[in-house]
């Protein structure tokens, strides 16, 4: 128990955090999105000339964060850029449009929660798309990050929601990546490994979801192999069975000449464009979020906290665990398929224990048992990995140190045990509209 500080700040001298965020209390998500949209529009129109004005050679790619380390002298310029191009329109719109946006949000909600959520999502995608469009590097980082979100969340299902320690996620990812690659390479591409294309190439992007699902199912099948022996008893056996599985998958792929062996598979068609990756990630997050909030998901939590009690409450523990495990593996497989078509090259070495360490880091950094946490973990570690590039070697001292500190001060991660409720997110924020709610 941490003691609660008995000193309450005197009125008028409230904490800085409150003073900053108070004016935005009534700003709904819609207004924020409009603000971001305006910022992105501004960047498209004025970005380059403004960047030149403040002394930058190019539009700062990741909010100017990369410049701090590589060219610190230019940093004030980058800061000014971020302030003027991003923060200024964002804050202005968030403050000025709060009222009309609330009305609009309420109107949207009356059309049905699904409509409202989809509208917000579409708006969010539009902002992301135009932001990423400025530079191919930005777009690539966004795509990698989205795939990482999918992977992190699916691993969180097992390690966080179910409370087991699974090491086989890179293996599932590999199965999905290879499955989807075989699908698209054999059907739509003239490839030295698989011969002539069987179907006309224009069908490719339309049938690509089938390949992804196929890859995901392959991964789920692999998960079944692990799940049957390891959920007989409770304990750490999943940890090593899944680790052994990882070694087996890697060795298997190295020994299959028709998928290229250690040389890997290349030249997958470029199907994983930003909208495709975004759509799959959004769908994955939505489905997984629904899953963890369903009875099945809640029984997973029950099993984690006390298996015997859960059993007594008529939870079929073995069945529940196996379903969850295969479900998580499916999404890891889908993420693997997207990854393969984005990288357009995969080899077995990509899916080794180092990737495992990376994924585990994202899950535990963001927070266990939490959809928000997974998103935060994946996004922040991916961005950090890019931003800290100029550090070279020391990047790999800085990131682990940061993680250790997070673990020590927040042992379950930054945002653990948070529910993700899309409808609440898109609600209007003004008090008078919520009708008497405190």
């Amino acid at each position: 128990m941490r003691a609660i500080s008995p000193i309450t700040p005197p009125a008028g001298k409230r904490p800085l955090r409150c003073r900053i965020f108070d004016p935005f209390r009534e700003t709904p998500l819609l207004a924020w999105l409009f603000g971001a949209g305006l910022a992105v529009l501004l960047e498209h129109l004025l970005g380059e000339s403004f960047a030149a004005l403040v002394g930058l050679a190019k539009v700062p790619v990741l909010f100017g964060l990369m410049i701090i380390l590589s060219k610190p002298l230019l940093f004030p310029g980058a800061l000014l850029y971020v302030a003027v191009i991003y923060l200024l329109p964002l804050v202005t719109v968030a403050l000025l449009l709060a009222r009309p946006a609330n009305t609009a949000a309420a109107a949207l909600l009356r059309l049905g929660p699904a409509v409202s959520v989809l509208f917000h999502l579409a708006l969010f995608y539009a902002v992301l798309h135009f932001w990423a469009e400025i530079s191919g590097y930005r777009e690539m980082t966004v795509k990698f990050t989205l795939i990482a979100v999918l992977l992190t969340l699916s691993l969180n299902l097992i390690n966080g929601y179910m409370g087991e320690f699974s090491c086989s996620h890179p293996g599932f990812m590999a199965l999905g990546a290879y499955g989807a690659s075989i699908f698209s390479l054999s059907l739509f591409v003239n490839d030295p490994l698989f011969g002539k294309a069987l179907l006309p190439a224009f069908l490719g992007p339309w049938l690509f979801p089938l390949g992804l699902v196929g890859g995901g199912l392959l991964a789920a099948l692999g998960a079944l192999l692990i799940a049957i022996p390891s959920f007989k008893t409770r304990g750490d056996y999943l940890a090593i069975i899944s680790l052994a599985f990882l070694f087996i998958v890697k060795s298997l792929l190295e020994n299959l000449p028709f998928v290229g062996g250690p040389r890997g598979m290349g030249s997958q068609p470029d199907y994983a464009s930003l909208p495709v990756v975004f759509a799959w990630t959004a769908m994955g997050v939505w489905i997984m979020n629904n899953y963890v909030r369903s009875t099945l998901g809640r029984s997973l939590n029950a099993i984690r906290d006390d298996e015997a009690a859960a059993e007594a409450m008529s939870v079929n523990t073995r069945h529940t665990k196996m379903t969850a495990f295969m479900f998580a593996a499916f999404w890891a497989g889908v993420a693997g398929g997207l990854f393969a078509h984005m990288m357009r090259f995969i080899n077995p070495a990509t899916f080794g224990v180092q990737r495992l360490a990376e994924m585990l880091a994202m899950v535990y950094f963001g927070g266990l048992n939490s959809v928000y946490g997974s998103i935060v973990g994946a996004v922040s570690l991916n961005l950090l990995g890019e931003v800290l590039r100029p550090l070279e070697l020391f990047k790999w001292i800085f990131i682990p140190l940061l993680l250790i500190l997070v673990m020590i001060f927040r042992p379950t991660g930054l945002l653990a045990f948070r529910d993700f409720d899309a409808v609440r997110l898109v609600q209007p924020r003004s008090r008078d509209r919520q009708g008497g709610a405190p």
Partner: protein
Amino acid sequence: MRKIPYLLLAALVAGMICSPLAWSKGKSIKIGINAPITGDNPKVGEGTKFAAEMWLADVTAAGGIEVGGSRYPVQLVIEDNEYKPESAVKATTKMIIEDEILVMVGPQASSQAVPAGGVADSYATPMISPWSTNPNTTKDRPYVFRGCFLDPFQGPVVANFIKGEFGAVKAAVLYDVAADYSKGLAEEFKKAWEGINGPGSVAAFESFTTKDTDFSSQLTKIKNSGAEVIFTPQYYSEVALIVPQARELGWDKPIVGSDSWGSADLIKLCGPACFGLYFSTHYAAAGAAGPTREFIDRYQAKYGYVPDDVAALTWDSLRIVQAAIEQTGKLSGKIENDRAAVRDAMAKIREFEGITGKMTFTEEGDPSKCAVIVRITDQGEFAFHKSVCP
């Protein structure tokens, strides 16, 4: 005390106003170096980086690269690819788009060069991988070149050499199944050897996995197979484990290697056990003359050890890049056009005199160059034995 925030603010504003002054004025040529500084094989990254820095020092001393009568200063952009495909793709994209490099040198290993080559080609940026032996790196990619010979050339060279030198009939191969370089070369060798000596003449085709250190089981099998010679296309640090272990298990027949043996560290790590062995490579350090000697001496003086093949190949690749830039005749300042011009100039290079041999690029962007068979002398030097040309 209360003034501190205002002072900070003032400093920040001053910085913002001054920051255009920190602009780098004037045009310069940016060359990207995509190297594994961290990750599984940091030594490769170090060799690449050192060779690149040496090259940069030379170019800077000369006042930059001369194109069409004016000299352009050169800037290196070095990015770490962590020896991972994904990271290589990220680094490549970043350098091409954000840093606006003219040419990229690297990545070295095929597992990174293949995906990075795809990115470079799609952004129409010339790339030269000094060390990647996988045919897919350059295949159907007009903008991608390489600086070394391919497995289908080196495999038969070694097979013919063994046949001629030792007259052996049965050979054994020991290779890393998880490394594409070793596996590719092992298979090419097997094909060539069976072409010479008939099917079944590869008595043992044994493998292990990257980072393995114990080869006793495989070597015992090889010893029992009746093979007369071992071919092991492994990285020198593994050779330094394989050879002594083979000797300890009583193997006294020859062991032959490939260009990945070519590091002075081999002798440091392996010691007398490796004396008297042969391997195929790009150049022989001992008894080298002319520019090769000069490069080796300078590298050794600067970094304290004889350069590996990675460093030598990177050096050559950078000099090819330099030659290509010079031959464009004019830089327009528009990066897209300049990249295309450099690419065309590079494809036109004929008989380039590199320290690792003469190079001419084929249609695919692969150099046709000679291989050298090197004998490790009893002093631990790499002595020229013979040369094989395509």
